[in-house]
């Protein structure tokens, strides 16, 4: 059974819809807004959005699932994205990725047991002259060696 939206979640969804209703073709903008508020797109938000925007559930579900950025479950408090694309591969992204997975004890799309970090792959951060690149939330980091990652991780843990 699908979890119904909590009242606060429903309110957040409706607030985002209201703020964007007059913008043409705004479903993706609305989904960005919902994810910014709730951290993910709950399955139960789909029928609410469909109803509000006069779309079918299938249309909304189709969009939510098409885009890699939209998540279907609550993530950790911080999100770490590691670039997997060619430029970063040329500078050791494969070894870096293995190191990060080992350090965090998770694979891609998983969250650490303490709920702190979710690890995601990303395909290019546009920081290809400073490869390999990692992004933590919106903080971008370049020339990330395993040692530098450990330093960054210690900083991120302190901030949490």
């Amino acid at each position, binding site marked *: 059974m699908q979890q119904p939206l909590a009242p606060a979640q429903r309110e957040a969804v409706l607030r985002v819809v209201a703020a964007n209703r007059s913008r043409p073709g705004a479903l*993706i903008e609305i989904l960005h807004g919902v994810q910014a508020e709730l951290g993910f797109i709950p399955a139960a938000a789909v029928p609410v959005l469909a109803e509000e925007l006069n779309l079918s559930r299938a249309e909304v579900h189709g969009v939510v699932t*098409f885009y890699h950025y939209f998540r279907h479950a609550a993530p950790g408090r911080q999100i770490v994205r590691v670039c997997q*694309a060619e430029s970063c591969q*040329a500078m050791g992204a494969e070894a870096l990725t293995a190191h990060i997975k080992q350090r965090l004890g998770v694979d891609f799309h998983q969250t650490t047991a303490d709920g702190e970090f979710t690890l995601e792959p990303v*395909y*290019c951060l546009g920081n*290809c002259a400073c490869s390999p690149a990692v992004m933590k939330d919106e903080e*971008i980091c370049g020339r990330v060696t395993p040692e530098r990652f450990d330093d960054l991780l210690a900083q991120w843990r302190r901030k949490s």
Partner: protein
Amino acid sequence: MSIDIYVPRDSGALSLGAEATAQAIAKEAKARNLDVRVIRNGSRGMYWLEPLVEVATAGGRVAYGPVQASDVPGLFDAGFHTGGKHPLGHGVTSELPFLKSQQRLTFERVGITDPVSVADYVAHGGYQGLKQSLKMSQAEVVQAVSDSGLRGRGGAAFPTGIKWKTVLDQKAAQKYVTCNADEGDSGTFADRMLMEGDPLMLIEGMTIAGLAVGATQGYIYLRCEYPHAYKVLNEAIAAAYQARYLGADVMGSGRRFDLEVRLGAGAYICGEETSMLESLEGKRGEVRVRPPLPAIKGLFGQPTIVNNVITLASVPVILAKGAAFYRDFGTGKSRGTLPIQLAGNIKRGGLVERAFGLTLKELLYDYGGGSATGRPLRAVQVGGPLGAYIPASQFDVVVDYEALSAIGALLGHGGIVAFDDTVDMAKMARYAMEFCAVESCGKCTPCRIGSTRGVEVVDRIIQGIDTERNVRLLEDLCETMLQGSLCGLGGMTPFPVTSALKHFSEDFRNRARGLGHDERRV
């Protein structure tokens, strides 16, 4: 008299600590009772020197880099705020060989100005193109773009003027100008640098386009992996509205042009123009069948210009200085300048804007300084994940549309990713297929399923299973994808795969013999 110190807010500089550096400079200046103004500019595109701090002096701007926050007290001790000597000093920025030899038209102001200051933009020649275009008829503006020889810098290299003329010729109540800022190709970052370093130039280009074809609404479709560009663009758009360069009365002309940024959501395919339009409409980014062309039936079914960031940002200079000025740069059918991005395993990575005509060798060694690791360069991939791999034996090729095409490669968006001799090209071929499998929109079977099968076939080759048969199967699969896909994702993923097979056959064929990485090459 205050001292102007520039610290970039470009993502690349931020990724190396520019924020902490900027804060340290402000703090140290205050502690020393110095009247310092810290200006957050774009990047000069010399990423091995980032964070690159510049100090304005009577003799021009002086560069120091890479400057970490911990270097700041020492720099002040050495009097860097008056251009003093320091081991991190490089002298006058514009005299650095990497910059001095460039011909920066599109990147003229990037790294020079405060990106969100309209006054700074205008003081450095901004909005001259729009001003000129307002004195011309719509057809004359479109003609000037045609005459300049400008071709789409996103990768497809379609003549921009023809696109604009098609939109101009349509009768419609509403037309659109859309900017494709879904710069997803690995090794490319010119769009990002421009949006973070001189967003007003893009805004001016889009405004000229809108007024020229009769479109009152513009959208910038920006990938969500660029949160810093998103901030800068929105600040710049707000500043342009404030100064009445956007809105109901553009530069007092009585004509309207509105502009907003829309975020993508992590789908590579949305860099394909029809997929981008679907996404802008709030739908799944599935590729549309053409015809109809977007210029005739584009966004919300209306006539729409779809151009890349660099294409639109090239427009102001064409209008300001004339089509002939722009056309006189370049060679053959590749006119104007090209911002090349040096990336991957390269000592001096960054942005090189020059007229077409440089060879790969000049770019990789004269500008790039060879590999970052100090090992020999073995291969480069030009034009993103759908571009061919080029072996060292072909580094003499000229980097323009036609010359690259003649050797089965493509220029794309001008990104060059360098690999040293530790690269395993069978793994890179596998990655090309894997990337296509992750990013396929699912519409065409050869792309959606073929890419997954491609990963499996390359895996068997890597394991040394039935090599010759699997190589033939891989070639056959590539042919099917090439012929049977609507857009470039499925249709061009074969390029990196087949070029790797062709030029680096030993990485595929010698695996069955159980040889190590270096032994395979003998």
